[in-house]
């Protein structure tokens, strides 16, 4: 399992990369893509939409099931990675490059896990 040191993580398996204090990119982790299996469709929001903590902002479909992606921050969507619409498999092959959205004007954020904490969280999850 790949858990880069420079990212922040959530217990719902999103990663957050801060570009500056109030701007961040959001994606799903290597653990998440592995659990979901082959991803074949991504339903993305639009630039200008609001994203809020713990609210669904996108969903991904694997061959078997649909899964919601939750906001780890509150802010305004400033960019959407349209490449995922045509190539959802990037989420499987390059989960930390395949960002979903970029959020600006971040006014609130979750209590994140750091890489070590997230790794431990996933290992406990796997043990269940």
């Amino acid at each position, binding site marked *: 399992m790949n858990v880069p040191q420079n990212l922040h993580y959530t217990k719902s398996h999103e990663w957050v990369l801060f570009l500056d204090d109030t701007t961040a990119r959001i994606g799903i982790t290597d653990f998440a893509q592995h659990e979901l*299996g*082959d991803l*074949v*469709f991504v*339903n993305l929001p639009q630039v200008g939409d609001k994203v809020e903590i713990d609210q669904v902002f996108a969903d991904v*479909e*694997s*061959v*078997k099931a*649909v899964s919601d992606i939750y906001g780890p921050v509150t802010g305004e969507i400033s960019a959407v990675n349209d490449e995922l*619409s045509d190539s959802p498999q990037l989420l*499987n092959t390059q989960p930390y490059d395949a960002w979903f959205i970029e959020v600006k004007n971040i006014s609130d954020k979750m209590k994140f896990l750091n890489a070590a904490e997230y790794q431990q969280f996933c290992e406990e999850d796997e043990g269940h």
Partner: protein
Amino acid sequence: MDLKTPLYDTHVAAGGKVVPFAGYLLPIQYATGIITEHMAVRKQAGLFDVSHMGEVLYSGPDAKANVNKVITNDVDLLENGDICYSPILNHDGGFVDDCIVYKYNPDKYMIVINASNRHKDVAWFKEQLFGDVVFEDISDITAEVALQGPNSTAILEKLVAATDIPRGYYTFKENVLLDGIPCLISQTGYTGETGYEIYTSNDQITAVWNKLLEAGKDLGLIPCGLGARDTLRLEAGMPLYGHEMDDTVTPLEIGLGFFVKMEKDGGFIGKDALIAKQPFNTKRAGLKVTGKGIVREHATIYAGDLEVGMTTSGTHSPYFGYGIAMAHLNKKFAKIGTALEVDVRGRRVAVEVIKLPFYKKEQ
């Protein structure tokens, strides 16, 4: 408490992602993933553990009459060593289950049933018994694997004498040896490809599994999970109990009339109800997703504002690369080429009615 098939440890050791299914712990996929497993079956070969399936035996002078009473197809049309697909109906013409029936000889038959329905089916079969017949539920002492894909015959030929391989679709050979292991081998499957199902005892199935994987190594054979089994059967337009059929749906509404022999001697359970309920306004249809997204089961289908049906199964088709679904659709809107919409969690997704099966192998 979920049961384990005799291959459980083998699946775990091989990296299978094990999930509860129909009361059994079975791999939904291996590390290879559903799409790779699916395409292996379409292009080369895949191996599935289907030991969860239920098997019952009827034997004795009244075996034939007992089997023909509970199935809609007619075992009188079979030669020894032939197999038929059949609905099993309740008194209202709805499905108890669907099955395949193996004819050993005029006095002995095996019916293979869905794992999820096994106990219900066995109780139902026992309730209908009459005359001189011995009925046995052999599910717990029978293990089964499915070898599927264009290379499956070549793989089997490495382990089984040429004359012991069933050469016709829906035929079988009993008491044959697979590299020394006694098996029953049928040319059947649930994938739309050439393939075989191999039955043996619980203590021999792991050896069968390993021998097949070894023999198929150079022919692209990989182990496959339930995920690929479902996407393959869906592409092949094959119905699944609990999806396309249940105890309220009749076979005549879902395109299975061919397997209902209204004229057979002695009739069958559900026949009177089928006659009384005709004609039907709905049919089973195939949908291709022309908009964005994946359409899954239990989604409402619209023609404008009018509700015209419900999806019964749906997935991303690994072979075609777009979403496909089967549906119970109002006949008036089921013409090939009809453009409709499906409600996918509050979003309308465009679909088109297309011909079933979605996938048909080259002859």
